[in-house]
Protein backbone atom coordinates (compact mmCIF):
# COMPACT_ATOMS: atom_id res chain seq x y z
CA UNK A 1 0.00 0.00 0.00
CA UNK A 2 2.90 2.32 0.82
CA UNK A 3 4.57 1.76 -2.55
CA UNK A 4 1.24 2.42 -4.26
CA UNK A 5 0.75 5.79 -2.59
CA UNK A 6 4.42 6.65 -3.19
CA UNK A 7 3.81 6.24 -6.91
CA UNK A 8 0.48 8.06 -6.80
CA UNK A 9 1.95 11.29 -5.42
CA UNK A 10 4.53 11.43 -8.23
CA UNK A 11 1.84 12.72 -10.55
CA UNK A 12 0.28 15.81 -9.00
CA UNK A 13 -1.81 17.68 -11.56
CA UNK A 14 -2.32 21.32 -10.71
CA UNK A 15 -5.46 23.33 -11.21
CA UNK A 16 -5.66 27.09 -10.81
CA UNK A 17 -8.67 28.92 -9.46
CA UNK A 18 -8.69 32.69 -9.70
CA UNK A 19 -10.86 33.95 -6.86
CA UNK A 20 -10.77 37.60 -7.89
CA UNK A 21 -6.98 37.90 -7.90
CA UNK A 22 -5.19 40.94 -9.37
CA UNK A 23 -3.39 38.48 -11.72
CA UNK A 24 0.02 39.02 -10.06
CA UNK A 25 0.01 35.57 -8.47
CA UNK A 26 -1.33 34.01 -11.69
CA UNK A 27 1.63 35.46 -13.58
CA UNK A 28 3.94 33.94 -10.97
CA UNK A 29 2.18 30.57 -11.37
CA UNK A 30 2.73 30.76 -15.13
CA UNK A 31 6.36 31.66 -14.50
CA UNK A 32 6.74 28.64 -12.26
CA UNK A 33 5.54 26.44 -15.10
CA UNK A 34 7.16 28.07 -18.11
CA UNK A 35 10.60 29.33 -17.12
CA UNK A 36 13.18 26.55 -17.46
CA UNK A 37 14.83 27.38 -14.15
CA UNK A 38 11.69 26.55 -12.16
CA UNK A 39 9.87 23.98 -14.37
CA UNK A 40 7.27 22.25 -12.17
CA UNK A 41 7.05 19.43 -14.70
CA UNK A 42 10.16 17.90 -13.13
CA UNK A 43 7.99 17.01 -10.13
CA UNK A 44 5.56 15.31 -12.51
CA UNK A 45 3.19 18.27 -12.32
CA UNK A 46 1.02 19.41 -15.15
CA UNK A 47 -1.37 22.31 -15.30
CA UNK A 48 -4.69 20.86 -16.33
CA UNK A 49 -7.64 22.74 -17.78
CA UNK A 50 -10.40 20.80 -16.08
CA UNK A 51 -11.15 20.68 -12.34
CA UNK A 52 -12.08 17.01 -12.77
CA UNK A 53 -8.44 16.14 -13.53
CA UNK A 54 -6.93 18.05 -10.62
CA UNK A 55 -5.11 16.75 -7.54
CA UNK A 56 -3.64 19.94 -6.13
CA UNK A 57 -5.70 23.09 -6.44
CA UNK A 58 -3.98 26.47 -6.31
CA UNK A 59 -6.29 29.33 -5.29
CA UNK A 60 -5.29 32.95 -5.81
CA UNK A 61 -7.19 36.12 -4.88
CA UNK A 62 -9.21 37.35 -1.90
CA UNK A 63 -12.51 35.63 -2.83
CA UNK A 64 -14.73 38.43 -4.00
CA UNK A 65 -18.50 38.39 -3.58
CA UNK A 66 -19.02 37.91 -7.31
CA UNK A 67 -16.91 34.77 -7.73
CA UNK A 68 -17.56 33.20 -4.32
CA UNK A 69 -20.29 30.76 -5.37
CA UNK A 70 -18.46 29.82 -8.56
CA UNK A 71 -15.19 29.15 -6.73
CA UNK A 72 -16.94 26.95 -4.15
CA UNK A 73 -18.74 25.07 -6.90
CA UNK A 74 -15.58 24.47 -8.93
CA UNK A 75 -13.76 23.38 -5.76
CA UNK A 76 -16.47 20.80 -5.11
CA UNK A 77 -16.13 19.47 -8.66
CA UNK A 78 -12.57 18.31 -7.94
CA UNK A 79 -12.45 14.58 -7.18
CA UNK A 80 -11.13 13.37 -3.82
CA UNK A 81 -8.44 13.12 -2.54
CA UNK A 82 -7.42 16.72 -3.21
CA UNK A 83 -5.08 19.19 -1.55
CA UNK A 84 -5.77 22.92 -1.46
CA UNK A 85 -3.00 25.50 -1.64
CA UNK A 86 -3.69 29.21 -1.09
CA UNK A 87 -1.22 31.20 -3.19
CA UNK A 88 -0.48 34.82 -2.26
CA UNK A 89 -1.46 36.88 0.77
CA UNK A 90 -4.99 37.59 -0.52
CA UNK A 91 -6.61 34.18 0.07
CA UNK A 92 -4.90 34.01 3.49
CA UNK A 93 -5.93 37.35 4.98
CA UNK A 94 -7.39 39.51 2.23
CA UNK A 95 -4.08 41.32 1.72
CA UNK A 96 -4.40 44.88 0.45
CA UNK A 97 -8.08 44.25 -0.23
CA UNK A 98 -8.85 43.36 3.40
CA UNK A 99 -11.98 45.06 4.65
CA UNK A 100 -13.23 45.91 1.18
CA UNK A 101 -17.02 45.91 0.73
CA UNK A 102 -16.96 43.10 -1.83
CA UNK A 103 -14.39 40.84 -0.15
CA UNK A 104 -15.71 37.57 1.24
CA UNK A 105 -12.27 36.18 2.24
CA UNK A 106 -10.21 34.89 3.93
CA UNK A 107 -10.76 31.79 1.90
CA UNK A 108 -10.66 29.30 4.78
CA UNK A 109 -14.02 30.60 5.95
CA UNK A 110 -15.41 28.38 3.18
CA UNK A 111 -12.74 25.95 2.01
CA UNK A 112 -10.31 23.87 4.12
CA UNK A 113 -6.88 25.20 3.10
CA UNK A 114 -3.96 22.79 3.51
CA UNK A 115 -0.97 24.96 2.58
CA UNK A 116 -0.52 28.73 2.70
CA UNK A 117 2.05 30.32 0.38
CA UNK A 118 2.25 33.97 1.49
CA UNK A 119 3.71 36.77 -0.62
CA UNK A 120 2.47 39.57 -2.83
CA UNK A 121 3.12 37.87 -5.16
CA UNK A 122 5.07 34.86 -3.79
CA UNK A 123 8.30 33.92 -5.56
CA UNK A 124 8.29 30.85 -7.82
CA UNK A 125 10.59 29.10 -5.34
CA UNK A 126 8.02 29.41 -2.56
CA UNK A 127 5.22 28.28 -4.87
CA UNK A 128 7.23 25.16 -5.67
CA UNK A 129 7.88 24.62 -1.97
CA UNK A 130 4.14 24.92 -1.41
CA UNK A 131 3.46 22.29 -4.08
CA UNK A 132 6.02 19.97 -2.46
CA UNK A 133 4.36 20.46 0.95
CA UNK A 134 0.98 19.74 -0.64
CA UNK A 135 2.46 16.52 -2.06
CA UNK A 136 3.50 15.48 1.45
CA UNK A 137 0.03 16.19 2.82
CA UNK A 138 -1.48 14.22 -0.07
CA UNK A 139 0.78 11.24 0.77
CA UNK A 140 -0.20 11.41 4.44
CA UNK A 141 -3.84 11.52 3.44
CA UNK A 142 -3.42 8.44 1.20
CA UNK A 143 -1.68 6.59 4.04
CA UNK A 144 -4.44 7.59 6.43
CA UNK A 145 -2.19 9.74 8.65
CA UNK A 146 -3.80 13.10 7.84
CA UNK A 147 -7.59 13.41 7.76
CA UNK A 148 -9.24 13.87 4.37
CA UNK A 149 -11.75 16.52 3.48
CA UNK A 150 -14.67 14.14 3.54
CA UNK A 151 -14.47 13.41 7.27
CA UNK A 152 -12.99 16.77 8.15
CA UNK A 153 -15.72 19.21 7.27
CA UNK A 154 -18.31 19.92 4.66
CA UNK A 155 -18.45 22.95 2.46
CA UNK A 156 -21.89 24.48 2.51
CA UNK A 157 -22.92 26.74 -0.29
CA UNK A 158 -24.30 29.95 1.19
Amino acid at each position, binding site marked *: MNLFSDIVVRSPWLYRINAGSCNGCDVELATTACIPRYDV*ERLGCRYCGSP*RHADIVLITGPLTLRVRDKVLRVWQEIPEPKVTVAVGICPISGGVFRGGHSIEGPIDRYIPVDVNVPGCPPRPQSIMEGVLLAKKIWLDRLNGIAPGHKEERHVSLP
Partner: protein
Amino acid sequence: MSDIFSLISQSATGLFHLVVFPGGLFALLFGLVLKGIDRKVEARLQRRVGPPLLQPFYDLVKLASKETIIPETANKTLFMYAPLLGFTGMAVCLALLPVPGVYYGMENMGDMLVFFYLLPLPAIALMVAGSSSSSPFGALGFSREMTLMFAYEVPLLLVILAVAMQVGGEGSAEFSLRKIIEYQREHGSFGFTLSMLPAFVAYLLYLPGTMGVPPFDVAEAETEILEGPLLEYSGGLLAFFQLTSAMKLVIALGFGVVMFFPGTVAGGPLVNIVWFAAKCLLLMLVALTLCKAATARMRIEQALSFYLKYPATLALVSVVLAWVSL
Protein backbone atom coordinates in the same frame (compact mmCIF):
# COMPACT_ATOMS: atom_id res chain seq x y z
CA MET B 1 -10.35 -34.10 -34.20
CA SER B 2 -7.45 -32.40 -35.96
CA ASP B 3 -9.86 -29.66 -37.00
CA ILE B 4 -10.61 -28.87 -33.39
CA PHE B 5 -6.91 -28.82 -32.53
CA SER B 6 -6.08 -26.47 -35.36
CA LEU B 7 -9.02 -24.26 -34.34
CA ILE B 8 -7.78 -24.16 -30.74
CA SER B 9 -4.22 -23.42 -31.76
CA GLN B 10 -5.46 -20.73 -34.16
CA SER B 11 -7.52 -19.00 -31.52
CA ALA B 12 -4.63 -19.36 -29.06
CA THR B 13 -2.24 -17.58 -31.44
CA GLY B 14 -4.94 -14.98 -32.10
CA LEU B 15 -5.30 -14.40 -28.38
CA PHE B 16 -1.52 -14.17 -28.04
CA HIS B 17 -1.40 -11.48 -30.72
CA LEU B 18 -4.27 -9.62 -29.06
CA VAL B 19 -2.99 -9.76 -25.48
CA VAL B 20 0.81 -10.07 -25.56
CA PHE B 21 2.43 -9.18 -28.88
CA PRO B 22 2.09 -6.96 -30.88
CA GLY B 23 -1.14 -5.85 -29.21
CA GLY B 24 -1.92 -5.70 -25.51
CA LEU B 25 1.04 -5.75 -23.15
CA PHE B 26 3.80 -4.97 -25.64
CA ALA B 27 1.93 -2.08 -27.23
CA LEU B 28 0.83 -0.61 -23.90
CA LEU B 29 4.32 -0.68 -22.39
CA PHE B 30 5.93 0.55 -25.62
CA GLY B 31 3.36 3.32 -26.09
CA LEU B 32 3.69 4.57 -22.53
CA VAL B 33 7.51 4.54 -22.71
CA LEU B 34 7.28 6.43 -26.02
CA LYS B 35 5.05 9.02 -24.33
CA GLY B 36 7.57 9.36 -21.51
CA ILE B 37 10.46 9.86 -23.96
CA ASP B 38 8.30 12.36 -25.86
CA ARG B 39 7.68 14.49 -22.77
CA LYS B 40 11.31 14.30 -21.64
CA VAL B 41 12.74 15.26 -25.03
CA GLU B 42 10.21 18.07 -25.44
CA ALA B 43 11.25 19.48 -22.07
CA ARG B 44 14.96 19.22 -22.97
CA LEU B 45 14.30 21.01 -26.28
CA GLN B 46 12.78 23.85 -24.25
CA ARG B 47 15.77 23.77 -21.85
CA ARG B 48 13.67 22.41 -19.01
CA VAL B 49 14.49 19.40 -16.85
CA GLY B 50 11.29 17.60 -17.69
CA PRO B 51 9.41 14.81 -15.94
CA PRO B 52 10.90 11.38 -15.19
CA LEU B 53 10.82 8.85 -18.02
CA LEU B 54 8.14 6.74 -16.32
CA GLN B 55 5.79 9.69 -15.76
CA PRO B 56 2.95 8.24 -17.94
CA PHE B 57 2.91 5.13 -15.70
CA TYR B 58 2.74 7.30 -12.56
CA ASP B 59 -0.13 9.27 -14.12
CA LEU B 60 -2.07 6.07 -14.79
CA VAL B 61 -1.58 4.76 -11.23
CA LYS B 62 -2.63 8.15 -9.89
CA LEU B 63 -5.77 8.25 -12.04
CA ALA B 64 -6.70 4.76 -10.87
CA SER B 65 -6.49 5.94 -7.25
CA LYS B 66 -8.84 8.89 -7.80
CA GLU B 67 -12.57 9.15 -7.43
CA THR B 68 -14.54 8.78 -10.69
CA ILE B 69 -17.33 11.33 -11.01
CA ILE B 70 -20.17 10.93 -13.50
CA PRO B 71 -22.14 14.15 -14.01
CA GLU B 72 -25.83 13.96 -13.17
CA THR B 73 -26.92 15.47 -16.47
CA ALA B 74 -24.73 13.22 -18.63
CA ASN B 75 -25.98 10.24 -20.61
CA LYS B 76 -24.50 7.66 -18.22
CA THR B 77 -24.32 4.67 -20.58
CA LEU B 78 -22.62 6.56 -23.39
CA PHE B 79 -20.40 8.40 -20.94
CA MET B 80 -19.14 5.09 -19.48
CA TYR B 81 -18.76 3.24 -22.78
CA ALA B 82 -17.09 5.99 -24.84
CA PRO B 83 -13.58 5.30 -23.42
CA LEU B 84 -14.06 1.56 -23.99
CA LEU B 85 -15.03 2.15 -27.63
CA GLY B 86 -11.68 3.73 -28.44
CA PHE B 87 -9.77 1.24 -26.27
CA THR B 88 -11.22 -1.91 -27.87
CA GLY B 89 -10.87 -0.43 -31.34
CA MET B 90 -7.18 0.17 -30.77
CA ALA B 91 -6.69 -3.25 -29.13
CA VAL B 92 -8.12 -5.02 -32.20
CA CYS B 93 -6.16 -2.79 -34.55
CA LEU B 94 -2.93 -3.58 -32.70
CA ALA B 95 -3.42 -7.32 -33.12
CA LEU B 96 -3.18 -6.70 -36.90
CA LEU B 97 -0.14 -4.43 -36.81
CA PRO B 98 2.67 -6.09 -38.78
CA VAL B 99 6.15 -5.98 -37.29
CA PRO B 100 8.42 -6.55 -40.32
CA GLY B 101 10.48 -9.71 -39.97
CA VAL B 102 8.47 -10.95 -36.98
CA TYR B 103 4.73 -10.85 -37.55
CA TYR B 104 2.56 -10.08 -40.58
CA GLY B 105 -0.96 -9.54 -39.27
CA MET B 106 -3.80 -10.68 -41.51
CA GLU B 107 -1.43 -12.05 -44.18
CA ASN B 108 -3.04 -11.74 -47.60
CA MET B 109 -6.19 -9.76 -47.00
CA GLY B 110 -6.70 -6.01 -47.47
CA ASP B 111 -5.70 -5.13 -43.93
CA MET B 112 -4.58 -1.64 -44.92
CA LEU B 113 -8.24 -0.69 -45.35
CA VAL B 114 -9.03 -2.17 -41.93
CA PHE B 115 -6.42 0.20 -40.50
CA PHE B 116 -8.00 3.11 -42.33
CA TYR B 117 -11.36 2.32 -40.74
CA LEU B 118 -10.08 1.51 -37.24
CA LEU B 119 -7.62 4.42 -36.85
CA PRO B 120 -10.32 7.13 -36.40
CA LEU B 121 -12.05 5.16 -33.60
CA PRO B 122 -10.34 7.04 -30.72
CA ALA B 123 -11.44 10.32 -32.33
CA ILE B 124 -14.98 8.97 -32.60
CA ALA B 125 -14.79 7.86 -28.97
CA LEU B 126 -13.81 11.43 -28.07
CA MET B 127 -16.79 12.73 -30.04
CA VAL B 128 -19.15 10.38 -28.21
CA ALA B 129 -17.53 11.39 -24.91
CA GLY B 130 -17.88 15.09 -25.67
CA SER B 131 -21.48 14.90 -26.78
CA SER B 132 -22.62 12.63 -23.94
CA SER B 133 -21.00 14.64 -21.15
CA SER B 134 -23.66 17.37 -21.44
CA SER B 135 -21.12 20.15 -21.03
CA PRO B 136 -20.98 23.04 -23.53
CA PHE B 137 -17.20 22.65 -23.70
CA GLY B 138 -17.66 18.97 -24.52
CA ALA B 139 -20.00 19.92 -27.37
CA LEU B 140 -17.46 22.46 -28.64
CA GLY B 141 -14.73 19.81 -28.48
CA PHE B 142 -17.02 17.40 -30.31
CA SER B 143 -17.55 19.78 -33.22
CA ARG B 144 -13.84 20.63 -33.41
CA GLU B 145 -12.79 16.97 -33.26
CA MET B 146 -15.18 16.17 -36.10
CA THR B 147 -13.93 19.05 -38.28
CA LEU B 148 -10.31 18.09 -37.63
CA MET B 149 -11.01 14.45 -38.41
CA PHE B 150 -12.49 15.35 -41.79
CA ALA B 151 -9.39 17.43 -42.44
CA TYR B 152 -6.73 14.81 -41.65
CA GLU B 153 -8.52 11.75 -43.01
CA VAL B 154 -8.31 13.12 -46.57
CA PRO B 155 -4.49 13.08 -46.76
CA LEU B 156 -4.40 9.69 -44.98
CA LEU B 157 -6.69 8.16 -47.59
CA LEU B 158 -4.55 9.63 -50.40
CA VAL B 159 -1.33 8.36 -48.77
CA ILE B 160 -2.80 4.85 -48.48
CA LEU B 161 -3.95 5.04 -52.10
CA ALA B 162 -0.50 6.19 -53.29
CA VAL B 163 1.28 3.32 -51.51
CA ALA B 164 -1.30 0.76 -52.68
CA MET B 165 -1.08 1.95 -56.32
CA GLN B 166 2.72 1.94 -56.28
CA VAL B 167 2.69 -1.69 -55.10
CA GLY B 168 -0.18 -2.75 -57.35
CA GLY B 169 1.34 -1.25 -60.50
CA GLU B 170 -0.36 -0.76 -63.85
CA GLY B 171 -3.37 1.11 -62.51
CA SER B 172 -4.37 -1.52 -59.94
CA ALA B 173 -3.99 -1.26 -56.17
CA GLU B 174 -2.72 -3.71 -53.54
CA PHE B 175 -4.07 -3.28 -50.02
CA SER B 176 -2.27 -6.14 -48.25
CA LEU B 177 0.39 -4.95 -45.83
CA ARG B 178 2.36 -8.19 -46.25
CA LYS B 179 2.58 -7.63 -50.03
CA ILE B 180 3.56 -4.02 -49.42
CA ILE B 181 6.40 -5.09 -47.11
CA GLU B 182 7.57 -7.73 -49.60
CA TYR B 183 7.42 -5.29 -52.53
CA GLN B 184 9.63 -2.84 -50.64
CA ARG B 185 12.10 -5.60 -49.76
CA GLU B 186 12.65 -6.07 -53.49
CA HIS B 187 12.37 -2.49 -54.76
CA GLY B 188 13.73 -0.49 -51.81
CA SER B 189 11.89 1.34 -49.02
CA PHE B 190 9.30 3.91 -50.07
CA GLY B 191 10.90 6.41 -47.66
CA PHE B 192 13.84 6.52 -50.10
CA THR B 193 11.80 6.28 -53.32
CA LEU B 194 11.46 9.61 -55.12
CA SER B 195 7.84 9.15 -56.20
CA MET B 196 6.75 8.20 -52.66
CA LEU B 197 8.57 11.03 -50.86
CA PRO B 198 5.63 13.49 -51.12
CA ALA B 199 3.35 10.82 -49.59
CA PHE B 200 5.85 10.28 -46.78
CA VAL B 201 5.93 14.01 -46.00
CA ALA B 202 2.12 14.02 -46.06
CA TYR B 203 2.10 11.15 -43.54
CA LEU B 204 4.54 13.07 -41.31
CA LEU B 205 2.10 16.01 -41.37
CA TYR B 206 -0.86 13.70 -40.71
CA LEU B 207 0.69 12.35 -37.48
CA PRO B 208 0.39 15.47 -35.26
CA GLY B 209 -3.23 15.92 -36.37
CA THR B 210 -4.31 12.41 -35.53
CA MET B 211 -2.44 12.39 -32.22
CA GLY B 212 -3.89 15.78 -31.26
CA VAL B 213 -0.58 17.42 -30.37
CA PRO B 214 0.30 21.08 -31.02
CA PRO B 215 -0.25 22.82 -33.43
CA PHE B 216 -3.33 20.63 -34.05
CA ASP B 217 -4.55 20.12 -30.46
CA VAL B 218 -7.59 22.29 -31.20
CA ALA B 219 -10.10 19.69 -29.98
CA GLU B 220 -8.51 19.28 -26.54
CA ALA B 221 -7.25 22.82 -26.15
CA GLU B 222 -6.96 23.04 -22.36
CA THR B 223 -6.47 26.79 -22.32
CA GLU B 224 -9.53 27.71 -24.38
CA ILE B 225 -12.13 24.94 -24.09
CA LEU B 226 -10.81 23.18 -20.96
CA GLU B 227 -9.76 19.92 -22.63
CA GLY B 228 -13.07 19.77 -24.52
CA PRO B 229 -14.43 16.21 -24.62
CA LEU B 230 -12.30 15.11 -21.65
CA LEU B 231 -13.53 17.93 -19.42
CA GLU B 232 -15.97 15.84 -17.37
CA TYR B 233 -13.86 12.69 -17.17
CA SER B 234 -11.96 11.81 -14.03
CA GLY B 235 -10.23 8.85 -12.41
CA GLY B 236 -10.34 5.45 -14.09
CA LEU B 237 -12.32 6.57 -17.13
CA LEU B 238 -9.73 9.25 -17.90
CA ALA B 239 -7.01 6.61 -17.53
CA PHE B 240 -8.69 4.64 -20.31
CA PHE B 241 -8.37 7.65 -22.63
CA GLN B 242 -4.67 7.86 -21.79
CA LEU B 243 -4.18 4.15 -22.53
CA THR B 244 -6.03 4.54 -25.82
CA SER B 245 -3.84 7.46 -26.78
CA ALA B 246 -0.67 5.45 -26.00
CA MET B 247 -1.90 2.53 -28.12
CA LYS B 248 -2.90 4.83 -30.95
CA LEU B 249 0.59 6.33 -30.88
CA VAL B 250 2.09 2.86 -31.47
CA ILE B 251 -0.37 2.14 -34.29
CA ALA B 252 0.06 5.46 -36.08
CA LEU B 253 3.87 5.23 -35.90
CA GLY B 254 3.98 1.50 -36.69
CA PHE B 255 1.69 1.96 -39.69
CA GLY B 256 4.02 4.67 -40.99
CA VAL B 257 7.07 2.47 -40.48
CA VAL B 258 5.38 -0.43 -42.30
CA MET B 259 4.35 1.79 -45.22
CA PHE B 260 7.64 3.65 -45.67
CA PHE B 261 10.53 1.94 -43.85
CA PRO B 262 9.74 -1.78 -43.45
CA GLY B 263 13.38 -2.89 -43.84
CA THR B 264 14.58 -5.69 -41.58
CA VAL B 265 18.02 -6.47 -40.18
CA ALA B 266 19.81 -9.79 -39.95
CA GLY B 267 19.24 -11.57 -36.65
CA GLY B 268 16.41 -13.10 -34.67
CA PRO B 269 12.94 -11.73 -34.06
CA LEU B 270 14.14 -9.93 -30.94
CA VAL B 271 16.62 -7.84 -32.95
CA ASN B 272 13.88 -6.99 -35.44
CA ILE B 273 11.49 -5.92 -32.69
CA VAL B 274 14.14 -3.57 -31.32
CA TRP B 275 14.82 -2.29 -34.86
CA PHE B 276 11.09 -1.67 -35.38
CA ALA B 277 10.86 0.14 -32.03
CA ALA B 278 13.87 2.30 -32.90
CA LYS B 279 12.27 3.33 -36.18
CA CYS B 280 9.01 4.17 -34.42
CA LEU B 281 10.92 6.27 -31.88
CA LEU B 282 12.76 8.19 -34.61
CA LEU B 283 9.50 8.83 -36.47
CA MET B 284 7.91 10.12 -33.26
CA LEU B 285 10.81 12.45 -32.45
CA VAL B 286 10.69 13.99 -35.93
CA ALA B 287 6.94 14.17 -36.52
CA LEU B 288 5.56 14.76 -33.02
CA THR B 289 8.10 15.91 -30.45
CA LEU B 290 9.93 18.50 -32.55
CA CYS B 291 6.64 19.81 -33.90
CA LYS B 292 5.13 19.98 -30.40
CA ALA B 293 8.07 21.81 -28.85
CA ALA B 294 8.33 24.41 -31.61
CA THR B 295 4.76 25.42 -32.48
CA ALA B 296 1.70 27.04 -30.95
CA ARG B 297 -1.92 26.04 -31.44
CA MET B 298 -3.72 26.82 -34.73
CA ARG B 299 -7.34 27.86 -34.95
CA ILE B 300 -9.70 25.17 -36.22
CA GLU B 301 -10.25 26.74 -39.64
CA GLN B 302 -6.49 27.20 -40.06
CA ALA B 303 -5.92 23.52 -39.30
CA LEU B 304 -8.69 22.55 -41.71
CA SER B 305 -7.35 24.60 -44.62
CA PHE B 306 -3.76 23.50 -43.84
CA TYR B 307 -4.65 19.81 -44.12
CA LEU B 308 -6.72 20.22 -47.25
CA LYS B 309 -4.03 22.34 -48.92
CA TYR B 310 -0.58 20.92 -48.22
CA PRO B 311 -0.61 17.25 -47.09
CA ALA B 312 -3.50 16.44 -49.43
CA THR B 313 -1.69 18.00 -52.39
CA LEU B 314 1.57 16.22 -51.55
CA ALA B 315 -0.19 12.87 -51.27
CA LEU B 316 -2.04 13.54 -54.52
CA VAL B 317 1.30 14.15 -56.27
CA SER B 318 2.42 10.70 -55.11
CA VAL B 319 -0.83 9.13 -56.30
CA VAL B 320 -0.30 10.60 -59.76
CA LEU B 321 3.37 9.55 -59.83
CA ALA B 322 2.40 6.00 -58.81
CA TRP B 323 -0.34 5.98 -61.43
CA VAL B 324 1.99 6.86 -64.27
CA SER B 325 4.45 4.42 -62.54
CA LEU B 326 7.53 6.59 -62.21
